[in-house]
């Protein structure tokens, strides 16, 4: 089993060093993790840590250029979600691995057409545990509803889901069992949740061509 934390932010984005993340996440039972916000050169030596470029607020016209930069660096590319039109654009852009920050996208930002595209192109949809922990009341209810919609679409179209802690601090780290418990607020089937913890491994090693010729 390849249980991965889909995204963590080490120093300087967070307060934790990469080696400390490695120690903590191994202790929690993860077999690997994805590190965002650092250059890939600084991550040499640990095969369980994959680097990701976390693209936020990239205009649609610049997406292809930005995602194309990673090809020679063997990085994953995470792109922050936006409205439905933007998400469709992201999902049809070559080189994108994961559509992230789904809780920030507007209502109906991820529709069945997006789900179909994600499934066809094996692009992951990232759900973060942090809003479930940090938000309260109506804000958290909205996130749970949004996640439930995405799980419903996943159940129908079977695109890969990527679960992550989005940790910037040691207190944000969750064990796989805790992640399952938190996401069970939105979806009760644990089998799908466990599969989602492994899906980044499948996305990284996908056989579908990332760059269309």
């Amino acid at each position, binding site marked *: 089993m390849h249980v991965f934390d889909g995204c963590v932010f080490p120093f300087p984005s967070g307060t934790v060093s990469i080696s*400390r993340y490695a120690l903590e996440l191994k202790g929690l039972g993860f077999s690997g993790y994805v590190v965002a916000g650092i250059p890939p050169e600084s991550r040499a030596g640990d095969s369980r840590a994959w680097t990701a470029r976390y693209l936020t607020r990239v205009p649609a016209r610049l997406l292809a250029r930005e995602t194309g930069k990673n090809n020679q660096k063997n990085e994953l590319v995470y792109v922050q979600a936006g409205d439905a039109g933007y998400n469709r654009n992201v999902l049809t852009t070559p080189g994108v691995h994961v559509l992230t920050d789904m809780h920030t996208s507007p209502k109906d930002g991820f529709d069945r057409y997006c789900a179909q595209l994600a499934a066809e192109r094996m692009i992951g949809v990232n759900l973060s545990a942090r809003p479930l922990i940090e938000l309260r009341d109506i804000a958290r209810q909205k996130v749970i509803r949004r996640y439930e919609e995405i799980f419903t679409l996943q159940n129908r179209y079977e695109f890969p889901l990527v679960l992550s802690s989005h940790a910037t601090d040691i*207190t944000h780290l969750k064990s796989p069992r805790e992640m399952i418990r938190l996401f069970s607020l939105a979806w009760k089937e644990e089998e799908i949740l466990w599969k989602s913890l492994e899906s980044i491994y499948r996305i990284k090693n996908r056989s579908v061509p990332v760059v269309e010729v």
Partner: protein
Amino acid sequence: MRLRPSMRENFRYILAVITPDLTFESRDIYRAIAESVMSLYGDSIAAQVWPAVMKVEGSHVIIRCRRGTEQYLETALSAISLIQGIPAGVRPVRTSGTIRTLKEKIQSHTGKRDAKAVVSGITCDVIVDMQGRIDLKEKGIYHEIPRYITKEDIEDLNYDE
């Protein structure tokens, strides 16, 4: 009311670890747990779960709940982000039917030592544990270095006497 043994409630006990390694009073932990259960599930489920803090030993805490409600409590524990206004997480580790079993699992915390570490040319006060975890002390935090590190990240380490 005194009940016959067969009529008594059945409880489950959850061993949890507080991260980072801080010590809180049991009533502060109880408040954080109660707030989390209430905000996630409401009064009805909170009454069913009936959480109670049984024992606090360092950063380990044993929490009681009614049998059958362990999943609710575990979810609520995972959703805690603050205890008494201090950022902290409560990580459920093990569930058992008796407190004694969980007490046996609590590891002793004798392996922690104060030290001075040099990180990126800056000397700062740290706490070092046996597994190689190094936490910067609150007052010695600099923005140029991470707060939670390991021995790989430091240039020099001198233990305080």
